[in-house]
């Protein structure tokens, strides 16, 4: 069953007295239960417009949107609220609410006239709090939360809405790496329990690692869909995110620095972790790592030796290694 399906959907803005501003056409995509999908593309390519269109906030310019085989147009707002919940980048404007009160607002489509919570409503709220591991925050006011905590609370609110599909706009923006990973792992757990999750994001590294599929939006081009690895290997990701000027590293999923020529070339050996980080530092400094290079650097934790023509120099940090290599390269010129 498709949680969401778009058939030849065209999105953009209808304008009065002017031709419609079309952003994307012929989008035919679908989400299955258990899938986590990242929606990527440059600013202005129509990601937010797409999200607004499928959530019924703005009209489509053509095609159709289906939720579990029901056309979006035939769903009233309350039924749609039971199929789709969203987490936006905007913060709730009133901060003087407790976490539980906020999550309880997520029961809006189910609760009674006066917002009274039934036994079932209470159970679902409890479940949403447990699922997002925010029990310790339940009595906090929103203004007491950090950005990462607030994001988890907003996800709990979406869970309390009990929908099979959750759409999140930039859920990891403004978060530090730890919180970013925590939020993404949380979403992955939620998806594995049978919900569909669509994330609009710019975070290439995390989304290529954690998503089942990418939806790539490009200017003047058909929307592309596929597993992250396929899209990386056939170059679509690089083209979509406009990375060719910078060189997208196909193996590490990182962006390379432009390299000056002629560059210093070295070969790295040793402990895998140390090699990985040494390599990153060398790349940042315009030094090329090449297995045929004559200069060899042996890497161990806390110990680097540069070997050239049977002559070795030792270093105790990457910093010292870099200083020496830079001097060496300049002297050679």
């Amino acid at each position, binding site marked *: 069953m498709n949680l969401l399906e778009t058939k030849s959907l065209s999105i953009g803005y209808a304008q009065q007295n002017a031709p419609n501003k079309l952003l994307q056409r012929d989008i035919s995509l679908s989400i299955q239960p258990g899938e986590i999908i990242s929606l990527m593309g440059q600013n202005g390519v129509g990601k937010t417009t797409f999200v607004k269109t499928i*959530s*019924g*906030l703005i009209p489509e310019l053509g095609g159709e949107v289906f939720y579990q085989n029901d056309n979006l147009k035939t769903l009233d*707002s*309350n*039924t*749609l*609220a*039971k199929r*789709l*919940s*969203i987490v*936006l980048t*905007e*913060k*709730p*404007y*009133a*901060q*003087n*609410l407790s976490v*539980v*009160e*906020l999550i*309880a*607002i*997520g029961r*809006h*489509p189910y*609760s009674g*006239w*006066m*917002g009274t*919570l039934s036994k079932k409503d*209470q159970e679902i*709220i*409890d479940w949403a*709090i447990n699922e997002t591991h925010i*029990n310790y925050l*339940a*009595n906090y*006011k*929103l*203004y007491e939360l950090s950005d990462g905590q607030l994001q988890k609370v907003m996800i709990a609110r979406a869970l309390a*809405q009990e929908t099979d599909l959750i759409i999140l706009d930039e859920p990891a923006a403004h978060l530090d790496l730890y919180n970013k990973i925590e939020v993404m792992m949380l979403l992955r757990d939620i998806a594995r329990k049978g919900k569909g999750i669509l994330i609009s994001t710019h975070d290439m590294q995390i989304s290529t690692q954690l998503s089942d599929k990418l939806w790539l939006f490009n200017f003047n081009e058909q929307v592309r869909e596929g597993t992250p690895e396929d899209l990386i290997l056939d170059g679509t990701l690089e083209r979509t995110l406009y990375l060719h000027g910078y060189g997208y590293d196909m193996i590490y999923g990182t962006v390379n620095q432009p390299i000056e020529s002629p560059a210093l070339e070295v070969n790295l050996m040793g402990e895998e972790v140390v090699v990985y980080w040494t390599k990153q530092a060398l790349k940042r400094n315009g030094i090329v790592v090449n297995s045929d290079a004559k200069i060899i650097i042996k890497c161990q934790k806390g110990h680097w030796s540069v070997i050239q023509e049977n002559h070795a120099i030792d270093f105790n940090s990457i910093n010292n290694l870099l200083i020496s290599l830079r001097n060496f390269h300049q002297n050679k010129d």
Partner: protein
Amino acid sequence: MIQQFLETSRQKWTRVFVALVALFLGSLLLNISLGSVAIGFTDLMSFLFSGTTNNSGWDLILKTFRLPKAITAILVGSALGISGLQMQTLFRNPLAGPYILGISSGAGLGVAIAIFLGFYLGGFLELSGIGRSWLLVVAAGAGSLGVLLVVSLAATRLKDSVTLLIIGLMFGAASGALVSILQFFSQAENIQAYVIWSFGSLGSLSWTELHVFIPIILIGLASSILLSKPLNTLLLGENYAISLGLNLKKTRLLIIINTAVLAGTVTAFCGPIAFFGVTLPHLTRMLFNTSNHLFLTPLVIVFGAALMLIFDTIAQLPGMEATLPINAVTALFGAPFVIYILLRKKNLNYSFKS
């Protein structure tokens, strides 16, 4: 876990409500006992339970003056507080109040026209038996209703709530201008009559007028309680509210009509009482530290009633023959209080974050 949370919160709010109702009853007794003649507590009790104080003079004062005035104060306090609260939440603006949509300006224009043309209409009204006070009520009501119609029409067409706010402001400016023009061509006594109306008054309602006033305000307050749940979703922002299944245009229209009926009726009967509706919601949010409308709405109703009774008691302080204009009293005593709370708690920002 949530059960425990709901239980503690129920206990807390029950205590708060009991305390507030006690404050309300205290202010009610104080309000009807004080005035140009002070009536003792035991006499008040016997009046409330048996309908007489054994002093026919006092009975007359209580029945014809103090009781209607106290009832008016209660309803005006609750009504203005609620409409201020609704406007502040709908427009996400701490400066919004009952009159932000131009209700009082419309009423003012109606009254100005009635007073300044009343010179010509006066004879006709005397003949048809409609009193001067009803003329003002009808004029102010018609003015508010006109504004309500235009604003509701705009609300059904506009997506953006803030645009509505600006339309309301434009109404205020335009009707203010018309009133100035009318004043320019009027005689001094008419201008004075208009200025006195604009001071606001709680004491001008008799029982006949209360027969109309009480049911309208009670219906308005009851509907405001039903609007608490949608108002709560608006606390998250309009996009979230829509995603939660809220029909934004319909809800917005209901809120505007509710506010306009409450504020418009109060203005029609008592004149424009400005300060109270803007500050009472802030005061309630700050004192009770919540933005949850399921609690905030009943709190504002009871607290607004109690506070208006206290302000009215101050306005008719014993030993003074005249009653001070209620507008002046609410601002004079309310403003320092709000400043004090702000300096002490500093949490107004938590309720309004853009």
